[in-house]
Each structure stands twice: as C-alpha cells, then as structure tokens.
C-alpha cells in the first residue's frame, strides 16, 4: 500500500503529473529516437515507431521492420514500459513514376508500397499495482507528397483490487512535404472519439492533437518543432535537433516546455540494426531512460 501512495504522490507531483498522465495512452513511448528529440514525433520518417508516433509516416516504409523498446521513468520500477512494434508493406509499386499528377517522380517516393503499410503495436506500462496495456493496428499510405494514416487500439487499465477497464481509441495522422526533402509538416490526432474510461468525473482517455514542422537544414541536421495539446492539459511546445556527423551515428537533443524536461540521445545504425538510447532530465523528478532496437529486413533483390 505504501508503494501505491508513493506512486500516486509522484503522479501528482507538479509537472510529473502531466508526464505520468500522458502514459494513460500509448503516446508515451514511440522509440528512443523521438524520446531523445524532446518527444517531437509527428514529423519523424523512416521509422518503425511511426506505428505509435504518426501512423502516416508508416506509408514510406518499403521493407518489413520490427522494433523493441524499453523505457523507465524517474528510475522507479513501477513506471516501466515495454513495447513491441512491427510494420509490413503491402505490395510494391510497379512503375518508377509517381502516380500523383504534377509531382516529380523523385519526389513522389516512387517505391512506396502500392497498398500502404500495416503496423501493429503492443505495449505495457506500469507495475503490479497499476498497469496499462495497449494493442493497436495502424495503417499508413503515401499519396504523392502526402502521407495519411489511421490507428485503432484497445486500451486496458488495471488497478490492483479495483479491477480493470477496457476502451477503444481511434487516431488519425497526416504528413506532407512542403518542400520535398527539406520542410515537412506533420499532424496527429490521438483518440478523436474521446474514449471514456469511467463515468465517474467523466474520466476519458486523453484526446491529443499535435502539429509539427521538420526542417532539414542540411543532410546532417534536422530541426524539429511541435505543439501538443491535450484537452485536459496546458499546451506543450517542444523542439528537437538531430545531428548526424557520420551516417552510422546520430546525436540528439530536445526540450519540452510543459513538462520542463530536457532530453538527449544517441543512435547507431548499422546494416539491419538500429539502436537508440535516450535520456530525459526533469528538475524535480530526475532521470528517465529509454532504449529501443529496430530490425529491418534486407531489400529483396529483384
């Protein structure tokens, strides 16, 4: 019981309350790359974690991918998250020319899968006293310079001794290249149906709208900004920067205004593997860490 108090105390502690509440959904862990970039996630591309971050970005994946992630908040064992995601492209585009009118073939990502990409994700957060599970299916599709996506997931919340509740949340996502390969816009709407967890005090799964811009200043540098609004919380403004000095290594940094969190991260990419690590520092609550591994199937030789 002492533990439960400790957890609820933490949950209510100033800025920590927001951070923890955001966990009442699958928005929390979208891979260590996003975590290192101040949780800016709407404009990230080429990432299997798009299945949780922005399903629209799945649309560009050309090969099957699978990812495993583990995250911990504030060094407390009861705030652990474990997740697994997978993405499978459906069919290949036969011709090299993009199908969208007026868009150059190079830009239209000619090799985007013909029938889009399906992603699945499973996630568990919490410990013995309080736990959340999520199981979702996402779909992304590329249309010229635009990607659209949707996701449906089943969320289950369980409190020891109080039973559990289950609900379904639907989400929409989009990405557009304002200037191809330079300026990208992304937006996601999580839980548009405003799924209700309990009638008591009208408790609902957070509805969150996010919009962001990603600017690739050069091949090596990516600058990201994003605003996030949870209906029940103050607006959050986030920024992130990714620097890739050599192709195998990525260095990341970021911050978020509402949670007063600064983040940093590092990523390695070699062949079929990608490993990312992220750390976040919150003045009052301390350190959070996250690690994720993604595996990409080799391109089939035609």
């Amino acid at each position, binding site marked *: 019981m002492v533990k439960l108090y400790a957890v609820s105390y933490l949950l209510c502690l100033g800025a920590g309350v927001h951070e923890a509440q955001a966990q009442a959904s699958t928005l929390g862990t979208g891979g260590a790359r996003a975590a290192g970039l101040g949780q800016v996630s709407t404009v990230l591309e080429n990432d299997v974690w798009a299945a949780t971050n922005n399903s629209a970005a799945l649309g560009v994946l050309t090969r099957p991918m699978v990812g495993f992630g583990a995250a911990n908040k504030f060094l407390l064992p009861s705030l652990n998250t474990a997740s697994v995601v997978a993405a499978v492209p459906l069919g290949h585009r036969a011709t090299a020319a993009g199908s*969208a009118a007026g868009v150059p073939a190079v830009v239209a990502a000619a090799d985007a899968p013909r029938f889009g990409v399906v992603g699945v994700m499973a996630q568990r957060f919490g410990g013995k006293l309080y736990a959340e599970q999520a199981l979702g299916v996402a779909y992304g599709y590329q249309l010229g310079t635009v990607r659209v996506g949707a996701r449906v997931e089943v969320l289950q919340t369980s409190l020891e001794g109080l039973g559990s509740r289950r609900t379904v949340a639907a989400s929409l996502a*989009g990405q557009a290249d304002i200037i191809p390969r330079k300026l990208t816009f992304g937006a996601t709407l999580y839980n548009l149906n405003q799924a209700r967890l309990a009638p008591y005090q009208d408790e609902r799964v957070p509805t969150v709208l996010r919009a962001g811009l990603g600017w690739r200043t050069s091949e090596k540098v990516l600058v990201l900004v994003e605003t996030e609004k949870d209906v029940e919380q103050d607006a959050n403004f986030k920024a992130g920067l990714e620097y890739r000095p050599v192709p195998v290594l990525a260095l990341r940094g970021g911050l978020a205004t509402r949670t007063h969190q600064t983040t940093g991260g590092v990523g390695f990419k070699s062949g079929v593997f990608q490993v990312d690590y992220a750390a976040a520092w919150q003045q009052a609550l301390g350190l959070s860490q996250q690690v994720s591994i993604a595996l990409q199937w080799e391109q089939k030789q035609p």
Partner: protein
Amino acid sequence: MMRTQRAIVGLGLLLGLAYRVQAQEYPRPAVPDLDRLTQELFAEAQNDQVPHEDLYETLLQYYQTPLNLNVATREELRSLLLLSETQITNLLSHRQRTGGLLSLYELQSIDGFDLRTIYRTAPFVTVHTPDPNAARGPLWQRIQQEENNALFVRYERGLQTRRGYTTPDTVRGGQLATRYLGSPDKLLVRYRVSRARDFSLGLTAEKDAGEQLAWSPSTHRYGADFYSGHFLVQERGRLKSLALGDYQLQFGQGLLLSSGLAVGKGAETITTLRRSSVGLRPYSSVLENTFFRGAAATVAVNATVRATAFVTRKRVDASFSQRQDTLGDYSEVASSLQLAGMHRTPSELANRQALRETVLGGNLNYASRSGDLALGLTAINTQFDKPLLRRPEAYNAYEFSGRQNLALSAYYSYVWHNALLFGETARTSSGGLGTVNGLLASLAPGLDVSVLHRSYARSFHTFYGNALSENTRNINEKGLYLGLKLRPLARWEVSAYYDQFSFPWLKYQVGAPSQGHDWLVRVTYSPTKTSLLYAQLRQRTKAYDADTLRLVPLPVPTERRSLLLFYDASPLPILSLRTRVQGTQYREDQGPRRQGYVLAQDVTVSPRPHLRFSGRYALFDTDDYDTRQYVYEQDVLYAFSVPVLAGRGTRTYLLTQVDVNRHLTIWLRYAETHYRHQQTIGSGLEEIRGSRRSEVKAQVRYRF
C-alpha cells in the same frame, strides 16, 4: 503581336496551365478560397461585433460578377483591396499603352505583379472586351438570360434544447419567466441575379432562431422577421446607377457613409487602409441595420463629375424609457438603438422597428480624367420620429441626442508619383468635427508604407460611418497608424503596423480619458504556389476600469497579446490541409497573466469535381472568457462563421458540398463543441444542459 503571344505562352507555362492558353481564359476556381483570403485580410477576430459577413459578401459579389480589368477605373481596382497603388498605376498605363489585356495571363508581364498577387486577384477579376451588353437585347431579356441567377434556401438549427425553448418554470412578479416566442429553426431564402455594370436584382427573407413566423400588420410583421429587396440598374447613358429598395453607399473615407468594405486594422497593412468611393451598391445581406431603404441615383453631370442623391426611410430597433423630467418637451425617448436584429422575446419584439428614421442626402464627386485626383462633397441629414436620448451616464454626455442630425463632409484623394494622399473631414450639426487623413507610398519595389491620422471629436455623430478606428464607432478618438509591408526575398513578406490611440472622453467601462496602442507583425512565407506559412504576433494595450472597491473608477492598462501560427497547403490537387495554432495572453495592469490556446487541424478533400468535404478537429483551452478564442471556420456559401471558444474542450465540424447537376448544389454542415467538465453551456435563455452544443445547417442553391 508575336511578342505578346510568346510572352503569354511562356507565362502560361509559369502558371502551370499552359494548355488553357488556347482559350485565353483563365480557369477561375470553382470554389473561391474566400476563407483563406479573409484570414489573410483580417488579422484576428477579437470580438463578435465586427460585421465580417459584409466584407465576405463583397468578395463573393466580386466572385460572382468579376471586375473587368479592361474597363475598371482606378477606384474600382482599389476597392478590390488586393492591389497596391503602384500595381494599379502600372496596370492602367499598360492598358493605355497596349490597349486592353488579351488574357489574364498578360498580368504577369506588367511590372509589380508577382504571382501571389495574381493568384489572389484571379478569382475576382476577368478580362474581356468592353461593353458586353451592347448586343444583348432589352433589360428583362438580359436578366432572364443571365447565368448567375440563383435561389438559396438555408436551414439551421441547434440540436440541444436551450432554456429559451422550454416551458417557463419560474415566476417573477406574478409573471411567467421570459421564453422565446418562436421555434429554434433559422431560415433564410434568397434570390439574386446580377451582372457587373448592368443590373442587380435580389430578394431576401430571414427568420432567426427563436423568432416567430407571424402575420401581424399592426406590429409590422409579415411572416419572416426580416425582408430585404433591391433593384439596381447601371450604365444607362448619363444615369450611372439607380437603386430602388435596399442599398448601401460608400464615399470618401467612410466617415459619413461606409458600406461593407471596411476591413479595419488587419494583416494587410497597406491596401485596406484607404477606403474606396465605390458609391452606390446593392444590398442583399442579412445584417438588419447596415443599409438604406428607399431610392438612390447617380448621374454623370459630365465626364468627370458625378452627382448622387438618395432618400431612405425605414424603421429601426430602439429601446425606450419614460423621461422622468416632466418639463421636457417629450415624454417618451429612445434610449438606445438596437443593432443585433434579434426579435425573440416579448421585450425584443417591443423594441422592434420602434423608431422611424428618414435620411436625405447627396454627394458630388469629381474624378480627373486620369483618375489621379478625386474630390468630393457629401451631405446627409438624419431625422428620427421620436427623440433619442441616451441613459444619463457620464460616458454618454456627448452622445447624440435629439431628433435630427445633419452631417457634411469633404474628401480628397491624389496620386503623386508613388504616393497616394487621401482624407476626409466632416462636421455634424452638434459642432463635432471628424477628420481622417492618410498616405500610402511605395518607397521601393519591395517596400510599401502607410500612415493614417484620425481625430473624431467626442461630439462627432455619424450613424452610417465606419472609418478606421479602434472604437466600433467614429467618436471620441484620436489616433495615428503606421503600416509597413516588406518583401525582402522572393517568397517572403513581412507586414507590420503600429497604432496609437487615445480617447479624450470617458467610454463604457472606462471612467476617465484613456489611451492605448496596438501593434502587429506578420511574417509570411510561401514556399510554393499552393502553400503558405505565417506567424503573427499582435498586442493591444487598452485601458479598462479596474475591479476595485474604490468609489472613483480607475482605468488601468489591460494587455492582450496573441500569437498565431498558420500553415496552409494543398499538396495534391484534391487535398488541402490547414493548421492553426493560436494563443492569447491577457493581463490586467500588474495582475496575473491568463492564457488561451487553440490548435486546429483542417482537411479538405475533393475526390470528385462535384464533391467536396471539409472537416476540422480543434482543441481549445482558455483560462477564462477574457482569453476566449475566435477561429474562422468554413461554412456553406454566403455564410460566415467565427465561433467563440472559451473553456476547455474540442470543436469539430464537417461540411459537405455536392453539385447534384448544373442547377442544383447542396451543402450540409454539422458542427459540435464538446466541453470538458461542464454541466451547462451558455447562460440565460441560451443555456444548454449537458456538455455538448451542436448545430446542423443545410443549404440548397438552385441556378436557373
């Protein structure tokens, strides 16, 4: 000719529409993107008093009957609000040098016309040879044959029951509580046919939600609550315009007469500052007070002088109070004019059309042959059948009282090189003087500036004026406005203004003379022809009485700062995306800063040419009503919607437009605001139990 053709082809390619060049007709967009344009013109809605509808209507009017660039005068081109003075001068001299434009594509060969200007202007202008009416038979035949000939029927209703429609549950002073008399349905029927520089005919009938459909000649009610109709003919030899029924007038800087072309302080800091003397315009909107009813005519005395005379007589809404002082020469006085146009409850009905207003006036306008110099005189006399006397509050001390008001004004406008000087000065029978003078100048190809000074005495009484001001009316104000528009790089534009104002006398909720200022900076970036990004910062400091227990009111500076980030793009021809982030900080004196925030995402999809869906999902969160947010929404054609969002929740809407066939178009709209942690929404008779407020709207257009 060869050169022109080559230019046209080359430029056509530039526009990406080369295949259309053969026809030499620019394909005007089927659905004008008026929302985007209005958002570009208006900085940010800050209250619901601004009659956006009127401007919207004007733009639509231009869309329906586009301005012919080959015959348009300088003044008409200015009234589009989209062209700078240099662009107009260049267009006119191009026309003089090479004759009329052959196609809209030719605009690109004129100095100063950048692609953005052309795209913005294209929906509202056309190019064809002069006098298309010449060979088209008598007027009634032209009316019959006119293509833009349409009947609109609109229906609107809130889905939740508001308290005003329930049975009265309380009794006060032996009387049942007030309830609305009519049904919650809103109805609008409207017929309109018009042709630029030829004729316009229109009829409108409207019933607001809560109003009754009643036939009672004794209270001037004949079915619907509001009717409007007009018939206007233009260009009949010396008779330039003749209007019967409802009309609007705009002359000079709008000090005495201003129709709906007033944008006010907005993000367009140069071209909207000056008002155009567009003269007589038909009226077919549903705002129940901003028009004249009667007859008006404009006659060309000679090639440069035009005379306008008008007479109007209509009933306006006013609330009454019995005069306490029996020594007065009247016992019943109107204490205020009611402008809302709502007649839902017995007391609103009692005020309906309670005052009769008779207006007589005239205007004399001189425009030099080149259009560079314009001078004018306006006289307008207003007569009420009952005297008007405001409530005896200190801030009303210099307001108009009595039965009659005569106002005279003189205005000028002169183009000198790259500068345009303009102004108007007026005096009303109370002795109050109002003057507004300004300058627009293009200092360099990429830099425009504007200056406007205004001074409206506390006893300056104008009923139909709407010159630039911070107050909603032109009274008790002095101010200086400085504007700037800079295009440092090809795709970038910076616009900014700074406006300083002071109110020499008291105002409602301001118990002492006060002052304030207001500024805006907007940086616009358009990376491609179909996308637009901008960031806008606006701040206004104005005094309001502090909430203290002192007996003497103490105005303190109140600051409102707002940030707007806007992104608009159509990455595919069938898809358009729009994102808006809007935040406001509000602070009274040294008090706490309160905040409001909205994030809205819009998507418009047009999978088939005759089908269009638009939707929005927005989240809002404001600390209180002072930080409330106004967000533009897409609506059925001819309607305009800027809902107020306060509290915490979500706002969604879905709009569908279907072109069933050549004649019939249907619009359907559903909108919902879902509040969090609220058991009731609204107050008084508008109160709803529950946490949702939703409306449905349907509109049908039948083109004959």
